[in-house]
């Protein structure tokens, strides 16, 4: 969980992690817009492939990429199944489940494939951003783009404490498991409730201690984030070129209907 969630990969030094977070955010936003505006599966598949290649080139494990893509793909699979049986009027195949004979519809199948491609493309962009940008840089970039100060402050506060609490929750969960706290459904529910309560209680105690420590260090209500360095011209150029390339590709696929 810890390894899957944390931004440890973004802490590595490589060409993508060194790139300015504002430039990456801009490029990602344009790419996401192009992916969901694409009329067919071609552009989203290309975007997905490029994101995976980029991640593999900076030595992110294939297993980790697959793990992060799994939830999105499971939802896309359900929607593909629903679409291909429910939408459209032109049957291309028939499937028998028990007494039911279900027809696979051409229109629904096409829409399902397009949807699946869009999910893959967009999730590819998302995991690229997550694997190459530390959370605090992302929040700083969001602040630079105009996100409210209080939201960014709250976000940084939430993010900072998540790891402490994951650690505490993991320890408590392990302790409950060895005491057979999850041996059956009833005990599992009670244990999960006690775990949730304990995590909340610990978080509140931690909040009190953190607050006192911050006051002792001169905290007066403002979280100091530190200034973002000036954006490198090369980063800005790469982001603009990428955005132009993606928008051109979108123009082509819109024209050709791909």
């Amino acid at each position, binding site marked *: *969980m810890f390894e899957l*969630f*944390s931004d440890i990969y973004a802490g590595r030094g490589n060409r993508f992690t060194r790139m300015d977070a504002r430039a990456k955010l801009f490029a990602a936003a344009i790419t996401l*817009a192009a992916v*969901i505006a694409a009329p067919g599966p071609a552009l*989203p598949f290309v975007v997905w492939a490029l994101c995976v290649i980029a991640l593999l080139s900076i030595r992110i494990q294939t297993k980790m990429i697959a793990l*992060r*893509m*799994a*939830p*999105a793909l*499971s939802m896309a699979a*359900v929607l593909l*199944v*629903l*679409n291909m*049986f429910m*939408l459209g009027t032109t049957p291309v195949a028939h499937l028998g*489940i028990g007494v*039911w004979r279900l027809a696979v519809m051409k*229109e629904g199948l096409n829409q399902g494939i397009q*949807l699946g491609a*869009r*999910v893959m493309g*967009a*999730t590819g962009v*998302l*995991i690229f951003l*997550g694997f190459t940008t530390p959370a605090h840089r992302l929040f700083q970039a969001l602040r630079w783009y105009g996100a*409210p100060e*209080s*939201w960014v402050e*709250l*976000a940084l*506060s*939430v*993010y900072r*404490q*998540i790891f402490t609490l*994951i650690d505490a*929750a993991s320890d408590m969960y392990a302790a409950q498991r060895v005491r057979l706290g*999850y041996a059956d*459904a009833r005990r*599992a*529910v009670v244990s*999960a*409730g006690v*775990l*949730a*309560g304990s*995590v*909340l*209680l610990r*978080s*509140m105690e931690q*909040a009190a201690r*953190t*607050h006192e420590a911050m*006051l002792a260090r001169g905290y007066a*209500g403002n979280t100091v984030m530190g200034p973002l360095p000036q954006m490198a011209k090369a980063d800005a150029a790469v982001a603009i070129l990428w955005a132009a390339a993606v928008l051109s590709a979108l123009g082509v696929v819109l024209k050709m209907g791909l």
Partner: protein
Amino acid sequence: MKYGFFLLAVLSGWAAFPPPAHAMHIADGILPMKWAAFWYLLAIPAVAMGLRTYRRESERSLRFRSLAGLVGAAVFVVSCMPIPIPFTGTCSHPTGTGLAAILLGPWLTAAISSIALLLQALFLAHGGLTTLGGNIVSMGIVGACSGYGIFRAARWAGLSLFASAFLAGMLSDWATYATTSAELALALHGDGSVLSLFLAVLAAFVPTQLPLGIMEGFVTAYALRFLSERWPEFPFAREIRHERANVLSKVFLALLVIAGLSIVAYAKGYVGVDDKVIGKFAADAGKEPSPSLLSLEGDLGLFVFLIAGAVGGFACGYFYRSLSSKKEDKAGKDV
């Protein structure tokens, strides 16, 4: 064929959400541009209200800042906890928004949810950036408001803390999934019916989310009971802006009554599952409808229905005790 897709939806939902099931959030890329923008526009005012609450309470007490951040982090962790689902053999996770709404109020929960959802999207690919607005609406607004409103209404009606928290946790979870289904149906129905796609998506969620909602109810209730025992002075019912909360719960109750009356009005023309579904399959199979083996018409039927409900309710209530009470052996020692 017409009803086959419901079975298919259930089966696909069952098969496609392996443990741990992260079916809560709409994945990135699913919503078209106009719907993504629409849900963002709907989410922004609620998040802004949450931030206003955050700033106002922070001005009163600086401690509130770290408290809000830590409760937000705790909710994030709670929403990542795997809970076994006994009927499906899978694990899933609670939303945590019902619990957060009880602790911090619905609007601040919406703001916290926007942060938790962004972090989950970026570092777990759970949800997405283009679907962030839709996910905030389903989990952070509908989930939090329904959980909070139900909790307040249940407390107002005199239910215990445990029962109120159970209802809040369970119904906020189901409300979240219903909203997610509606968002998907509205965006993806194409030329088909919104209602039929909504029902199909809802049916796909049922195998995991129906028991999960009940589980979340119990987890919320046990967590709140644990907190109330260990920290009795904590303001569970959100003492901050108490009078506004009362108005909110009344508005929520009124909405519930209106929704209930609307369903009753709509259901007048409803044929019933026997004729609509079972009768359809029987007709397809060439079987003629036959009279019931035990025909109970009129008041007698209603009476037996009432007795069945009462017996079922008694059995549930009787055995419910075994969920919470400790077993004792003959010597009176806890086992």
